[in-house]
């Protein structure tokens, strides 16, 4: 079975809220949304980004637009003003999350 890549079944866009980052995920189809609602848990996202040491990851559901929103707390090295990273605003996190893979066939 071919692995599923998040980027094949959804769009992601991330941005900053102070020292927190949000990642909005928009599924391309309803089955993809149902799959992600089950599989793409806050715990799984926290584990994926463990190197950024989030103090908390919250997940919000917007089934009306087939979207999930993740809020990753304190992952931006102090936020846009103090961060020493190239990606001061967490803009890359969405693209990074789209590289997440699951074993199995596409929903």
């Amino acid at each position, binding site marked *: 079975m071919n692995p599923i890549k998040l980027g094949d079944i959804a769009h992601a*866009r991330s941005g900053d809220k102070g020292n927190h980052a949000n990642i*909005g995920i928009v599924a391309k189809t309803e089955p993809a949304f149902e799959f992600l609602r089950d599989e793409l848990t806050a715990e799984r996202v926290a584990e*994926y980004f463990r*190197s950024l040491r989030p103090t908390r990851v919250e997940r919000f559901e917007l089934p*009306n*637009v087939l979207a999930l*929103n993740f809020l990753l707390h304190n992952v931006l090295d102090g936020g846009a003003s103090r961060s020493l990273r190239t990606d001061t605003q967490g803009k890359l996190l969405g693209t*990074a999350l789209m590289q997440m893979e699951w074993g199995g066939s596409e929903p």
Partner: protein
Amino acid sequence: MTLRIGNGAGFWGDNLDAPRRLVESSKLDYLTLEYLAELTLSILARLREKDQSAGYAHDFLPVLKSLVPALKAQPQLKIVTNAGGMNPASCARAVAAILAEAGLADTSIGVVAGDDLLPRLDELRAEGCDFRNLDDGRRLADLDQPIVSANAYLGARPIADALAGGARIVITGRVADASLTVGPAMHEFDWSWTDWDKLAAASVAGHLIECGAQATGGYLSGWEGANLADVGYPIAELEADGRFVITKPAGSGGRVTQETVAAQLVYEIGDPRHYLTPDVNCDFTTVSLVEEGPDRVAVFGASGGPAPEMLKVSLAYRDGFMADGRLLVYGDDCVKKAHECAKIIGLKLAQAGYEYERTSFEVLGAGAGVPGLTPPPAGLKECVLRLAVHDPRREAVERFTREFAPLATSGPAGLAGYTQARGEVRPVFAYWPTLVPRALVPPQVDVRNAAQWLASRPPGNGKGPH
């Protein structure tokens, strides 16, 4: 009546030609231009410290010049912008000069102010505001660094008031981004300020267009073939019942689909059931998106509750200095050499007696974009070493920037880019998000024509610290 509101700028630094192209290719009732990111005001506050006539987003001036022909040819066109930054009245005078020179001296310009709390901080503390940091709960009284700026997010009401006062161009300081759209909608449709669902609908429209091309296919996966060089900036077509359509100019690049609109709906939000603005507590989970034609997405069903009693305040304080430097590292062993160069620079600085409060080491090209997520790929032939430091001492940060060039002759072979390596030392303005009771922040609205703004006296005598 359909109200057509387009956004031609999503941040300070956005494309200078986008506003003109937008109004030339579509008949808009309102053009909104958004210039103020969370920390832009602290930079503008510093500029105003040095020159009392400065402190606004001066990108707006060349943009306005480019819009003069449209302002002459399209009598319906109005502009609402937060370009005023820390100095909206001064921005209005500069705008007035451009308009007067173009023969538009009778154009009415409205200025919305009252968001600047810096001169009022002591008074507000005496009223009992402790300006607790929303993220970590610290009280402002416990901050020992100097405060650079403190601005409350005003809402749509003063914008609607300025429009009701006859303004064709409204220039604000800090207002909620969505309010740039809500103000015109409230003015044109005469909705009640407690009709929360209508306020929510207009706020969703504003939120969707506030980041420019991000609603029309920009910064999205599936970018191939999207013709982003000609990307059309977004337009919201609002109806009196609160429904609206997101679209873009015919023939422009990019695309408007359920996906591009949904991706923007969830951009930089927290809890979608409570998207708070000064105008309304919005619920994004009741919004429906329907593609009703090519590059046309209908949006309806937004709902809302009473606006919060507290306004968000974006406060910034001085927090030392920062600089970064880069070197291009080439060759089979580039990642190893990048580590060695960082080590040499660190040892040189230690020999000179410098230690830094915070440091950062990135090997760009080897997965540094998201630290720790992906290991460096095997067989990499080149990468960029980037180092950054943050420290209270300017001279320590200055010294750091000098340590890249010596590697040209004393480092390993395969390095280039020394001339660009030395970064600029810049002051850090750290962010302190907090709240203030709405009742303590009365907005100020001042509408005059361009000739009157030109005749108005600026505060102080121009240049010089106050």
